[in-house]
C-alpha cells in the first residue's frame, strides 16, 4: 500500500486493467507519448505499445464513435476526452449509439466502453475547462455515470467501469487530481458501481454530494460537528444507476437532506436526488430539501470562479437553514 494521488490512482487502474485484459485499449488526444495532459495515461505507451495506446487526431465525436466500433468488436476501449468541456461533441455518439447498441440489437452487439474525462472547476483554468455536465449523461438511458472523489474510489470504480459490459461515463474531478491522496492497494479489486458510500455517519442531517464537492462537504461536516450538528455524508459515486436506498435510509434517520452539487442548479443531478427523496422519503422529512449548487449562470472565468462554486460556508448555510426546522 502506498499513498497516491487521485490521478495516480487512475493511472494505476488503467495499468492494471491493461495488464489483466488484452482487450483493453486506451485512446484519446495526447494519451500516448505525452501520457495525457494530466499524466493519467503516463507510462501506458511504454508498457503496452502503440497498438493498445492510441493518440488520436483531434476529433471527439470520432473518438467516441471509434470506441463504439471497437467495443462492438469485443474490445474494451477506454477513451479519454481531454476535458469534459469538449465531451459535448460526444453526446450524439454516446446517446444515439453507445447507450442503445445493446437494446436495439437485442444484445447481439454490445458496447463495453468507458469514456473518461476530467472536469469541474477550481483549478483556475481557462474557460470550457471547468464543466460539470454529469446530469446530462445521467439523463441518458443505457449509460452509467461514475464520479470518484478519492484515490481509492477512483481506482476501484475505474476498474469496475472498465470491466463493466456496458458503456460508462467516468468523470474525474481535476480539482482533486493532485490534492486528494490516499492509500491504494493496487490489488485489482473493483468497487461496486451501484453503491453509494457513507463517508461519515451522522444523525442530524444527510449531506449528499459527489466528486470535488465531497471535499467541501466533508469539511463542512467537520465544522458542523464542532457546532454540535452531526451530519451524515454520502458520496453517491455512481450517479447512474443510483443507489437510492442508502440515501432514503439516511434521510429516514436524519429527517433532513442537503444536496451539494457544483453544476448549475437547474436540472442538475441534485434535482434527481431531491425528487427521489420527495417521492419516497417525503414523510420522513422534517425540513425542506436544500440544494447548494452552482448558479444558473455560465461558470465565470478564473478570477471569480470561487464565488460560483459551493464552498464550505455555503454548505454550512444550507445546513443551518434545514436545521432551523424543528
Amino acid at each position, binding site marked *: 500500500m502506498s499513498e497516491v494521488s487521485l490521478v495516480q490512482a487512475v493511472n494505476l487502474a488503467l495499468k492494471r486493467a491493461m495488464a489483466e485484459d488484452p482487450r483493453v485499449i486506451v485512446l484519446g488526444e495526447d494519451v500516448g507519448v505525452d501520457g495525457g495532459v494530466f499524466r493519467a495515461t503516463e507510462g501506458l505507451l511504454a508498457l503496452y505499445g502503440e497498438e493498445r495506446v492510441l493518440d488520436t487526431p483531434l476529433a471527439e*465525436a470520432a473518438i467516441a*464513435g*471509434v470506441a*463504439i466500433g471497437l467495443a462492438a*468488436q469485443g474490445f474494451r476501449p477506454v477513451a479519454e476526452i481531454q476535458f469534459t468541456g469538449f465531451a459535448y461533441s460526444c453526446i450524439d455518439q454516446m446517446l444515439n449509439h453507445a447507450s442503445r447498441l445493446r437494446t*436495439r*440489437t*437485442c444484445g*447481439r452487439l454490445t458496447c463495453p466502453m468507458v469514456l473518461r474525462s476530467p472536469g469541474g472547476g477550481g483549478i483556475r483554468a481557462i474557460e470550457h475547462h471547468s464543466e460539470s455536465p454529469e446530469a446530462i449523461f445521467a439523463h441518458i438511458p443505457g449509460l452509467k455515470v461514475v464520479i470518484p472523489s478519492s484515490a481509492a474510489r477512483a481506482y476501484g470504480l475505474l476498474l469496475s467501469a472498465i470491466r463493466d459490459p456496458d458503456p460508462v461515463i467516468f468523470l474525474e474531478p481535476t480539482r482533486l487530481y493532485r490534492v486528494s491522496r490516499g492509500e491504494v492497494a493496487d490489488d485489482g479489486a473493483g468497487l461496486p458501481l451501484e453503491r453509494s458510500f457513507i463517508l461519515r455517519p451522522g444523525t442530524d442531517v444527510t449531506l449528499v454530494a459527489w466528486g470535488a464537492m465531497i471535499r467541501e462537504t466533508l469539511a463542512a461536516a467537520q465544522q458542523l460537528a464542532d457546532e454540535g450538528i452531526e451530519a451524515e455524508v454520502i458520496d453517491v459515486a455512481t450517479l447512474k444507476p443510483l*443507489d437510492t436506498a442508502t440515501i432514503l435510509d439516511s434521510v429516514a434517520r436524519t429527517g433532513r437532506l442537503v444536496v451539494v452539487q457544483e453544476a448549475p442548479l437547474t436540472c442538475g443531478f441534485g434535482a434527481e436526488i431531491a425528487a427521489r427523496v420527495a417521492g419516497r422519503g417525503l414523510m420522513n422529512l422534517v425540513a425542506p430539501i436544500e440544494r447548494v449548487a452552482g448558479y444558473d449562470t455560465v461558470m465565470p472565468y478564473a478570477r471569480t470562479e470561487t464565488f460560483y462554486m459551493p464552498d464550505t460556508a455555503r454548505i454550512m448555510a444550507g445546513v443551518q437553514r434545514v436545521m432551523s426546522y424543528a
Partner: protein
Amino acid sequence: MTTVATFSIAFTRILAPSGELVAPLPAFAADPAELVALFRAMVLTRTFDAKAVALQRTGRLGTYASSLGQEAVAVGIGAAMRPADVLVPSFREHGAQLMRGVSAKELLLFWGGDERGNDFAGPREDFPVCVPVGSNAPHAVGVALAFRLRKEKRAVVCVVGDGATSKGDVAEALNMAGVWKVPAVFVVNNNGWAISVPLERQTAAVTLAQKAVAAGIPGEQVDGNDVIAVRSVLERVLARARDGGGPSLVEAVTYRLSDHTTADDARRYRDDAEVSRHWAEEPLVRLRTYLTQRGIWTKQDEETLLQECGRAVEEAASAYLATPPREPAAFFDHTFAALPADLAEQRAGMTAERRGEP
C-alpha cells in the same frame, strides 16, 4: 508559386446505360452465372422494396426508405464483400443486407418497429441500419481498427449518402481511417438528393470522391448504376484494405428514383422530367439488356425470377405480419447486461400498473 501536391479523381464505368460494354469486363464476369447472380439480387431487392412500400401504404409497416434505382450500389457491395467482412450500412442498403444473409423478415421487422429485426441470425457482426446520418462512419473505423489490431484479413464497408458527406462525423472518420490505415472502405451512395436538397446545394465539390483528398486517402468514382463496375471497384479496394493497404472512398453515382421515404413526396421539390431522364439509366435494364443480347438471359428466365422473388418476399411479409409484438416490458431487458435495482423497480412498476395494481 510552386505546386506541392496534385490529385485526380477517376471514374469507372463498364456497362453503359445502353447495355453496351465501354470497358473490359473484370475477371469475375467471365462466368455468366456471376452476372446472373448480380441481376437476380437486384431484382430481389426491387421486389422487396415494392412490397415494403406496399405494406407501408396499407398501414402495416413504418416509414420506409426505398432503394429504387439504387440497387446496383447495394448489390455491388454485397457481391464484393466476403462473409467475414463487416457491413456498417446507412438505411438504403437492403440489397446488401439481403445478400449478406439478413432475412427479408428481419428487415421488415426493423422497418415495422421491432428491435428483433436487428438481431440478425445471419451476419452477427454487421451493424444494423443507421438513422442518424453519417454517425455510422466512426463505428466503421472502430471495427476496422479491431481487425487491424487482431491482424485479421477482414475489411469493413461503410455506406453513407451524399448528404452524409456534409456531416462532421464522416470527415472525422475518414481522416482517422487515413491516419491509422485501417481496412475500411467508405462507399458514398450518391443518389443526387438528400431529401429535398440536391447535390449542388449540398456541396460545392464537383465529385464526392474528392472528400477523400481531405483525409489523404484514395478516392474514386464509379457508375453506381453499373453493378459490374461497382462490384469490380469494390473488390479491388477491399482486397487492398484486407492486405494492409489502408482505407479508401468510393463514390457510387446513382439516382434516387423513389421518394426519399414513404413519408416524402418528391414532386414537391423535383421535376418529373428529371426523374424520367434517370429511368433511362437505372441499373436493372442495362444489365438485362446486356445479358439478353449475349443470350444469357431470356424472357422466361425473367418471368421465373419475378415469380421466385415475389414468392420469397410474400413469404417474408407473411412471417413478419404473423410475428406478434414483443412483450411490452421487453424493452427493459437489454438496457444493460444486468438490470440495475433502479430499473428492475421501474419494470415491476410498469407490469403492476398494467395489471391495474396501484
